[in-house]
């Protein structure tokens, strides 16, 4: 833990969590840190997916889905990105904002993108979720209620990939 200008998240492996939910027919981003990426430290011996599920459950409530969607090098760490789907009933007074579409960060043939905005990471995460919603029976089942399939349909499905 360090506090140069307030405290920042450290550690060689971190998770960047995008907590998403459906507000009617609109995808929104929320979380305990507001409508923004939620960073946590990851360490031994807990599995990253288990750590994210545990912390989301403790802080927000039981998630519907927890999926790692990409990774990149940032903040002097390896950052694992997670899309976490929650039920609308868990949003409460957490700040929330509609998610806008974004261009993807594209790699060179043999090199990572030089600059990646969190909106691009989230765009890829939702494309990954769109792919899972059609390819993965467990995800398809969890997202079978409500308009999830319709809301995700405009996202071009993509598998997991490295962003940086």
């Amino acid at each position: 833990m360090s506090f140069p200008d307030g405290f920042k998240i450290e550690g060689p492996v971190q998770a960047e969590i995008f907590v998403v939910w459906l507000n009617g027919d609109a995808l929104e981003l929320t979380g305990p840190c507001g409508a923004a990426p939620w960073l946590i430290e990851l360490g031994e011996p807990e599995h990253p997916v288990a750590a994210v599920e545990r912390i989301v459950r403790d802080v927000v409530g039981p998630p519907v889905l927890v999926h790692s969607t990409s990774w990149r090098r940032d903040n002097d760490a390896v950052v694992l990105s997670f899309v976490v789907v929650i039920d609308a009933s868990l949003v409460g007074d957490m700040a929330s904002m509609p998610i806008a579409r974004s261009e993807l960060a594209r790699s060179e043939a043999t090199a990572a993108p030089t600059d990646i905005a969190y909106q691009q990471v989230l765009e890829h995460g939702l494309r990954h979720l769109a792919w899972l919603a059609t390819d993965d029976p467990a995800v398809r089942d969890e997202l079978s209620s409500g308009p999830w399939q319709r809301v995700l349909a405009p996202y071009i499905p993509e598998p997991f990939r490295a962003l940086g």
Partner: protein
Amino acid sequence: MSNEQLLHVGCVCGWEAVGTEDEIVPAVLDHGERIHNMRGTREQVLANAKPAEQPASAEPSE
């Protein structure tokens, strides 16, 4: 009303706490562990806390 110095600590996520030493230390340590899975010490909190500019509420705020 206490004359104890009010301190301020902010987190990269936007969370802030303002309060006395005894109020701010547990608030920051709780936020770090509960929200960010980080563990720290009282000394780490105090080494980087800054005097609060505004004499507002002494309650840690989220």
